[in-house]
């Protein structure tokens, strides 16, 4: 089986300071990988380097494209990369307002990616927008409301709908449940889990919340000071951590 994503020796420096370095891994179709670590550990830098938001200083991010097989997205042309970003990739931001157009209705937000890839039938765009609102548990009669009138949890779900409407194969998520109430988080996690399985998505989820990765991620990568200190099966890393930092991280979680 060809990995969906092959990451080789990714390094991103901010001047002399290390953002992340020596990151190498393969992600297979349908796999969900969590990246955990404290603030400043380089996990968001890594995610943005993988998703093409930051240009890594060295390394390869090889994606198995539908048309041409594995291609290095770091060296591909910008139009190709941006096309990938709105078709086969999706990016869920921590703050919904970074990932939504706040002045455009919910329906328009979901429809944008469809129109960007050439859908020109209003009725079918609207139908798909309504269908996706339902899938993310937003009432269909909110389709013409702007996201600014939505709660935080709804905004986040709308962002997910907007991203998944084109049926991407790889989803990058940056703290998708950050800043949400626990009850809203649970609903979102359940929703994400369902979508991941239903659509066979592969995902890379950056979070500092170990409970989130236990529920969502098949495997885990633990980062500290820009480097990967431990990787493995999620429950194995959490229940039998090998590296001293992971042990500290796991033992620092408050028991409920």
């Amino acid at each position, binding site marked *: 089986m060809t990995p969906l994503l092959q990451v080789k020796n990714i390094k991103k420096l901010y001047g002399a300071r290390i953002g992340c370095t020596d990151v190498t891994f393969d992600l297979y179709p349908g796999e969900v990988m969590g990246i955990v670590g404290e603030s400043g550990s380089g996990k968001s830098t890594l995610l943005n380097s993988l998703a093409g938001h930051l240009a890594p200083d060295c390394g390869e991010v090889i994606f198995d494209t539908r048309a041409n097989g594995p291609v290095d997205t770091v060296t591909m042309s910008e139009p190709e990369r941006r096309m990938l970003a709105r078709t086969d990739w999706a990016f869920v931001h921590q703050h919904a307002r970074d990932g939504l157009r706040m002045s455009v209705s919910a329906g328009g937000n979901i429809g944008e990616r469809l129109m960007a890839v050439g859908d020109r039938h209003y009725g079918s765009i609207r139908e798909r927008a309504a269908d996706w609102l339902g899938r993310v548990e937003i009432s269909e009669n909110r389709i013409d409301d702007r996201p600014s009138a939505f709660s935080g949890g709804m905004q986040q779900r709308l962002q997910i709908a907007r991203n998944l409407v084109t049926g991407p194969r790889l989803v990058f998520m940056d703290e998708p449940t950050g800043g949400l109430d626990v009850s809203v988080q649970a609903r979102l*996690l359940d929703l994400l889990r369902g979508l991941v399985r239903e659509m066979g998505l592969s995902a890379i989820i950056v979070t500092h919340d170990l409970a989130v990765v236990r529920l969502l991620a*098949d*495997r885990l990568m633990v980062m500290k000071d820009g480097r990967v200190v431990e990787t*493995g*099966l999620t429950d194995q890393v959490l229940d*039998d951590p090998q590296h*001293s930092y992971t*042990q*500290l991280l796991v033992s620092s979680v408050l028991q409920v």
Partner: protein
Amino acid sequence: MIELNNVSKSFILHNQGGAVIPVMQNATLCLKPGECVGLTGVSGAGKSTLMRVIYGNYLAASGSVVVGGVDVAKAEPREILALRRETLGYVSQFLRVVPRVPTLDVVAEPLLAVGTPVGQARDKAASLLAQLNIQERLWGLSPTTFSGGEQQRVNIARGFAYDYPAMLLDEPTASLDAQNRATVLGLIETAKARGAAIIGIFHDESARAQVCDRFVDVSAFSPKAAA
């Protein structure tokens, strides 16, 4: 089906002065299809640890843990996940589920994961829940709010939904009434009959005697005994 060779396991506590706690040494075990082995030994002897090592939840320090042709001690996460999906089932003592998911779907999930059609998976889940006396009006609710005994039965139903060729059962009959206990033992015997290799921990001696073909005392694997 399940083959352990010289498996050892120790915990290194980096944040407590690097203390090394050896818990298992030279564990060797071999199970054929259709065989059920009961793990014995005093509490703390390492029965659950051994199971977790086999399931890949704990990382073996050395040796090999081959289940269905995959060495769990060295396999990639996705290989272990595939193994857990298709070959190796595990009924733990605790139910861990996503909040909000209805009981019926919790039980059907292992079937859905291997691609069983939804209707068929739900039917199987429903029949297991009925067998284990979970009232039908609870099926649409999340098991997180259930009593301990109910949660355990849901856990067992989930564990037996898919016909795994190999199974790990951690105290499946603990705290069950006579009727449910009999149902669970029946499920185990059915699984054996279709050729499943089973490793179980049973504190209940009569249950142990009824389903196990032989016993392995894990104290033999404890580092002190070896020393």
